[in-house]
Structures are given as C-alpha cells and as structure tokens.
C-alpha cells in the first residue's frame, strides 16, 4: 500500500522508509514559528533547562521564526514588555527569521512565512498558532502546537510522540463561478465535514480546480482547514508552488512530495466547483455554513476585510474593484487590514488603498487586528459583523453579545455598499 503526503513527509523526517497512519514518530522540524506567544515559549524553554546545568540554547536558531502580529503596535504595557523580552531573546540567540513591528519587514506570521519563502514542499513546520495549517499550501506538513510543545522543539529540534494522522482526500473539479472564490469553497467544505470532521486528520486537496488555483487561493484552503479540526491541510506541490517560491526569492531546487496513487485515505469527498454559490458561515460556529441566498439582507454594523485568511493583494484587488467610485453604506463601518506591509505597499501603489479611503473604509496596519478581539475594531452589544477572517465563535471579536458572519472579500465589499449581506455581481473575476 502506498503513502499519503503526510506519511511520506513524516517517514522522511523520522529517518524511516515507511510511515502509516497510527505510527508514533519523532519528526525533525524544518521551521518552528511563533508570534507574541514566544514570551510563554521562552518561559517554558528556560524551565526545561532548569536544574540541568546546561546552558539554555535553541537547537538551531536558523530554523526558528518569530513574527510580531497579534497585538501590533502593542496595545498595553504588558504586551510591550513581552515583546521586549522576545527581542532580547532573538538578539542573544541570533534568530534571523525575526520580523519586528516595521513596515519594511512586518506582517501576519502566516503571510510572512509565505512571502519570505521560508517553507519548502516536504517540510515539517510547527507554529504556536492554530492557523499554521496555512503552509500545507506549499506541500508541507504544517500544524499548530502549544507553547510548551514549542519549547520542547526549540530544545530538541523535533516533535516528540507524534501520531501519524489519517488523511481525508478532498477532490474538487470544475470552474468556480465568477463570484465564487477559494474562501467560499473552504467554507462549503467545512460545512460538509463539520467543525470536528477532520479532528486529528489531514485534508489533502486534489482535482483540477486546485491545480488551476494560484498559491493565494491554496493558502486560503489550508489556512481554514483547521476549522474542520484538521491537523494540517495539504496541497500537493507543483509548478505553481515552484513559481511562487522562485518569485519570492527561493534559489534552491524545489523537490515535490506527492502521494502514491495507491495511498490509503480514511474518507474521500468529491466536490463540483461549477455549482457552488457564495457561502456564509453564520454565528456562532464556522461549520454553520449556508449559501448566501439563505442569509441575504442581514443588516451589518461592521465589515472587516483582512487577516491571514483573506488579506492578500488579490483579495484587496477584488474588494477595490467592487468599491471603486462607491461609498460604504451609512450606518455601516468598514475596516481593512492587509496581511503584510508588502501587501499594504503594493495596494497603495495600485491605488486600492485610495479607493478604500474614498469609499469611507478605515485602513488599519497589517496584523491580526480585530479578528480575535484583542486589538481595535471591537463590536458593541447586539452588533453584527461580516468578516473575511476565519472564526465566528461567540466572543471571538471581543464581545460575546455580538455576532460574526464569515465570507469572501467579494461578499464583504458588495455588502459594504448596501449595509446588508449581498451577493456580489457575477463577472468580476
């Protein structure tokens, strides 16, 4: 019996010929990413060395990435002090993949790992952030872990006691209608699988819709795979992966890891892209997904475009195309936060930011922003948000008495103009 992508990656990273779902392995880590929660990782890392007489030193500083994004610029003295502690650690351990709060290197961690070409197909990537699943878009096995697990990785360079996950094969064929985007596709898949349908499993994406999808769309699919509970989403690497990595500075030879034809899957799901409608995840779970017809007309107080899910240049281009020459509806406010400063500056040069500002939207600095309710953009009691972010849990945006609907950038922009959930016109992509 052949192997899935994750089985191949974990076999290779553990020095074995074969790996099967259920095997316990200790894979070597290629990239270990953290954001502000590196403050807790440092604390646990020091604790591991405590009493050993050994000097606390990471196994390989060049494989550690730290990006400030969750609360930037710091919203409190507590955050600022944590960030200072992390900077000191970065300096004394010569961690070069560090991205501070600066417009010449900063952004949301998952966008930075992509943009700076830190990932390769076949890598084992861990991050102290659940949306680390994003990097499966490069054909890597990339998953979220807690801070103590990261401290263990910093110490030994591998993840201890990993059970090789089963894989769900999702095959998508056909052409997405012109007002339907990768975000709609992944919301549809999450609705189909349920919020725990892929718990402890990997989702492998196949089919011509995926093969024809640019990296920006594949990143959306893998980013939100965790909302079905998946350990990682994975798209088999191909020429598109290689092209993206080369364009972003990769100089090495890119090797693809692809699954065997007779690999064993725990479930196979087939989807016809031709028939998809724009999808909306309704409060308060991400799997409460409905086609837009069922929620059209819901009044919206705050529209949000941004995040590690949908704050990339093509997302802003779509939104700007819809908003050009129009106004955000009175009584509705709109926030835009690009996923990185490189995107911010590209959007500035292309005139998208001007379009947003003329329409009445507030442009925020790149970062996790209001997605998780820690930093600006809070909602009032009884208010409703429509957002291109990835979670709509009760209280997610900082107020348990508010509601969050999730959608594509096109739906968000079309709805900003009317002030209620609105289907974008066909023919925009």
């Amino acid at each position, binding site marked *: 019996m052949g192997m899935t992508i994750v089985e191949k990656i974990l076999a290779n990273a553990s020095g074995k010929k074969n790996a099967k779902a259920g095997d*316990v392995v200790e894979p070597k880590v290629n990239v270990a990413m953290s954001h*502000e*929660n590196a*403050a*807790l990782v440092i*604390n*646990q890392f020091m*604790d*591991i*060395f*405590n*009493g*050993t007489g*050994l000097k606390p030193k990471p196994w390989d500083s060049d494989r550690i990435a730290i990006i400030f994004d*969750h*609360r930037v610029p710091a*919203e*409190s003295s*507590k*955050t600022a002090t*944590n960030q200072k502690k992390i900077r000191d650690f970065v300096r004394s351990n010569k961690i070069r993949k560090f991205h501070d709060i600066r417009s010449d290197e900063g952004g949301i961690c998952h966008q930075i790992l992509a943009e700076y070409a830190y990932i390769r197909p076949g890598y084992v990537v861990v991050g*102290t*952030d*659940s949306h*680390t699943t994003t990097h499966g878009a490069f054909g890597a096995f990339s998953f*979220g*872990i*807690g*801070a*103590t*697990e990261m*401290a*263990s990785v910093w*110490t*030994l360079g591998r993840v*201890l*006691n*990993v*059970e090789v996950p089963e894989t769900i094969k999702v095959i998508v064929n056909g052409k997405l209608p012109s007002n339907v985007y990768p975000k709609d596709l992944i919301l549809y898949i999450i609705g189909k699988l349920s*919020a*725990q349908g892929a*718990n*402890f499993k990997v989702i492998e994406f196949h089919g011509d819709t995926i093969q024809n999808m640019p990296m920006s769309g594949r990143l959306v699919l893998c980013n939100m795979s965790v909302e079905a*509970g998946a*350990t990682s989403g994975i798209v088999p690497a191909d020429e598109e992966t290689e092209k993206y990595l080369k364009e972003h500075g990769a100089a090495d030879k890119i090797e693809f890891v692809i699954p065997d034809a007779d690999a064993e899957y725990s479930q196979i799901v087939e989807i016809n892209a031709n028939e998809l409608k724009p999808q909306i995840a309704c409060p308060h*779970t991400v799997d409460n997904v409905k086609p837009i017809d069922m929620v059209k007309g819901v009044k919206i107080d705050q529209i949000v475009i941004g995040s590690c899910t949908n704050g990339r240049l093509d997302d802003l281009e779509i939104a700007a195309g819809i908003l050009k020459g129009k106004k955000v509806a009175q009584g509705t406010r709109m926030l835009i936060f690009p996923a990185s400063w490189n995107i911010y500056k590209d959007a500035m040069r292309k005139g998208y930011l001007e379009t947003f500002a003329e329409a009445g939207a507030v442009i925020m600095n790149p970062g996790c922003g209001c997605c*998780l*309710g*820690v930093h600006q953009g809070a909602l009032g009691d009884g208010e409703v948000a429509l957002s291109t972010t990835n*979670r709509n*849990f*009760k*209280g*997610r945006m*900082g107020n*348990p008495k508010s509601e969050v609907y999730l959608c594509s950038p096109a739906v968000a922009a079309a709805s900003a103009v009317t002030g209620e959930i609105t289907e974008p016109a066909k023919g925009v992509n």
Partner: protein
Amino acid sequence: MAKVIYKFDADISTDAIYPGRYMATVLPTETPEYCFADYKELNEKLNSGEWKGGVLIAGENFGCGSSREQAASTILGHNLTVIAKSVARIFMQNSVNLGLELITCPSLEAKVGDDIVLEGGKVLNKTSGKSFEIVPLPAARKAIIEAGGLVPYTRKKLVEERTK
C-alpha cells in the same frame, strides 16, 4: 470524588475558555483569573474558590480553535477535571503537556450537582449509579503523562542526549 459544577454544549472554543483580550497574560500562575471570563457566574465562583476542584462536562469538540496554551493552564489553575464527548487536537495536546486531567467520554450522562468518580477506567456517576466508557488518550501521549508533563519529559531527553 468531585461535583459537576458546569455543563457546556458542543464546540466550546478556546476563545470561550480564555478570551483573546487576556492573551497578553501568559504565565501559568497568572492565567486562572480569566478562566471562562465571559461566563460570569462560573468565573466568579472559580475565583472565589467555591468551585475549585470541580468537574466540567462538555459536548463534542471541546477546546476547538486557537492553540493558546492559556486555555489549558487557566483550567488547571483551578484544579478542574474536564469530561467531554470529544476534544479538539491542539487543546488535548496542551492539556496532556501541562498535566490537566482531560477525559473523553462520548456516552456520559450527568447534570450539574452530580458526584463523579473515575473508577477502573470508567466514569462513574455516583448520583445516578451509571458508569460510562472512557476513550483512551492516543498512545503517543501516555509517556508524557507518565513523566509528569512535557517539560520533565523533554528535560530527561535533553540530559540524556547532551551528556552521552
């Protein structure tokens, strides 16, 4: 033996357990104050000590969402036991890594106030007299529990590997 202090529905996220606005607080000794901060009564009775050491009952997919480890340390700080129908992966790993007692028990029937004990690999509801099967933790996690958590487990490997 411990009493059921609170019963949750399915899909309780780590945002519900430990809201994002307290994420700047990271140290395990400081996180318990914000445990279920948006569930007023629960939070108050945990912080007053009245419900310390109690049992939380939950539906499917407990601990879904964010990987924030504070969600495990905040519950651990009140010495609570969690019994859920199923548990999301990252939260389960964080709980094991920190030593939080987390039990998967798909068929559990219990209500607030019931007395619960763990006996012979089963959950026994002393109030109703019924017992319920426990789903064992993934085998890969057991060695970590036996070592007392991931910090001592990693420390042991570190010493072995750097001194041999």
